[in-house]
């Protein structure tokens, strides 16, 4: 029979020491595999020139300097299009795409989760199926549709498809289903509120964790977007693309390139740190029932 230890009121399951030790070792090994390369990027970005070219290379930096970041900004100033333009492009498409996605996906998710209209099931199934294939399979025909609309080489080609990404709708719909009570919505409807009003004033305030999750997923995608097949003009290209051009300068730019990577990754990582608990809460209802 199971051995039970009792601590205060709760029953604690028996845990073998060997198991605990094994798990700890495995966790530390996997953690090192994940963390050390990230740490190495940061170290590289702080290394002065002589340490970057040291042989054999050292993992840790001994005389940290911000010179690489300064070099990066100097390189940016030599770019053909003002560098602020690239930053504007990325910020603009990220904000516009994310805002539109949040509104459209939330509206649709609310209707699919909370109004039993004919067709809500197959609509959701269709959206869910699209989670099962990678967007690159549609890239070629999507490009044709974009050219038909005359959207190639405009912001629209980046922003509008971002409105209808599917993971956001999926997570929002699942979360609404599990955490918005039908009774509250019903009483709002009985009071004569329109569906839109009920959605906006009752349901939306109840799903703040899901909003944040949607915003973060959408923002991350758009923020990390590099060169796009839809954009040819240099003036419309993204920050990430410009950074890649700098880092593609090869080995002599190793320091600046590490500095650029650190700047690019700092944004999504800090956003995740702030919102982690909300995202995990949203993921609680992410499961697929059938």
């Amino acid at each position, binding site marked *: 029979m199971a051995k039970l230890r009792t601590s205060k009121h709760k029953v604690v399951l028996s845990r073998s020491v060997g198991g605990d030790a094994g798990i700890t070792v495995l966790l530390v090994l996997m*953690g090192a595999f994940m963390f050390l390369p990230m740490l190495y990027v940061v170290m590289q970005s702080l290394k002065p020139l002589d340490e970057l070219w040291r042989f054999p290379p050292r993992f840790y930096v001994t005389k940290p300097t911000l010179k690489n970041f300064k070099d990066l900004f100097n390189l940016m100033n030599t770019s053909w299009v003002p560098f602020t333009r690239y930053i504007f492009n990325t910020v603009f498409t990220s904000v516009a795409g994310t805002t539109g996605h949040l509104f459209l996906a939330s509206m649709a998710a609310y209707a699919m989760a909370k109004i039993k209209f004919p067709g809500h099931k197959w609509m959701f199934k269709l959206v869910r199926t699209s989670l099962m*294939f990678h967007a690159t399979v549609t890239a070629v025909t999507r490009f044709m549709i974009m050219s038909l609309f005359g959207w190639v080489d405009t912001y629209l080609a980046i922003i509008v498809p971002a409105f209808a990404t599917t993971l956001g709708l999926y997570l929002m719909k699942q979360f609404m289903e599990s955490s918005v009570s039908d009774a509250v919505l019903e009483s709002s409807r009985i009071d004569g509120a329109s569906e839109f009003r009920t959605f906006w004033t009752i349901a939306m305030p109840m799903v703040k964790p899901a909003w944040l999750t949607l915003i973060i997923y959408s923002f991350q995608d758009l923020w990390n977007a590099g060169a796009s097949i839809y954009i040819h003009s240099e003036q419309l290209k993204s920050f990430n693309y410009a950074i890649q051009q700098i880092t593609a300068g090869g080995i002599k730019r190793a320091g600046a*390139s590490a500095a650029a990577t650190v700047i690019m990754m700092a944004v999504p*990582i800090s956003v995740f740190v702030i919102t982690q608990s909300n995202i995990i809460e949203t993921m609680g209802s992410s*499961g697929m029932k059938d």
Partner: protein
Amino acid sequence: MSQKTAEKKAVARKDMTRRQWLWKEIKRNKAAYVLVAPYMLLFTIFTVLPVVLSIIISFTDFNMLQIPNIVWLDNYISLFLDDDIFLLCCKNTFVFAVIVGPASYLMSFLVAWFINELSPKVRAVVTLIFYAPSISGQVYLIWGTLFSGDSYGWVNAWLLQFGLIDTEIQFFEDEDWVMPLCIVVALWTSLGTAFLSFIAGLQGVRRELYEAGAVDGIKNRWQELWYITLPQMRPQLMFGAVMAITNSFGFGGIVTALCGFPSVDYCAHTIMHHLEDYGSQRLEYGYSSTIAVVLFAIMIGANALVRKVISKVGE
């Protein structure tokens, strides 16, 4: 269930045909259609329509220059019978998917499970460490620095220093190294949405179930995992599988960034690269649509298969 009986009742009581009833329901729910319309319209244009178009175009020789002809199955036949590179791509894609998919899935689950009983603060830090590579964009290029083909590459430098090799290994141009390295890097970036979903799912398993299980004779954490945790988490396991499968077919970008396009002797060329080659570079849309349709079918098929397996967990 209750909804279905309600529907039947409504039909019976009001003595309407199914079609009349449906029309009435649609009119009654006008507001719902207004709410879903903008999203569904864009979703149809940018996701459904491209899939349908791909299928149609895959039966033609469309190339933007000449008037397209219907060639029926010719594209499919030459893809499978005459295109040696495509067969190589299939092999590489499967090797990638079969290793990275399950490995990433297992690693996501194990880590989530290991940290489940830690204090919330420690858990948050560990979550960040494992999740960070997947959201940091191009950060995987650091592997290019670590395994760089000159003596400034970390791995080469130390191998030289210890006298294990005489000349530097060209890691990203050596057929023996390209695939294994790309698999490691892909795995490194793959602890994403599924991982977070598992963490949340494990947190959601009610403690009483474990206590009841202990009373019922569950002896150790492995039995607890199999009999209580996994069946409780089945919905998250499904969702995680979908995410892992989709991602495991989508690692083309990493290969291109690290090894160039195409990789040396096509040794890490995947179906996705083949698609890009014909679609964006040679502009043979008919042929590239055929590749897209095949890849689409493979992904949907893999998903269906894996979901069937997971529905058996803990039974």
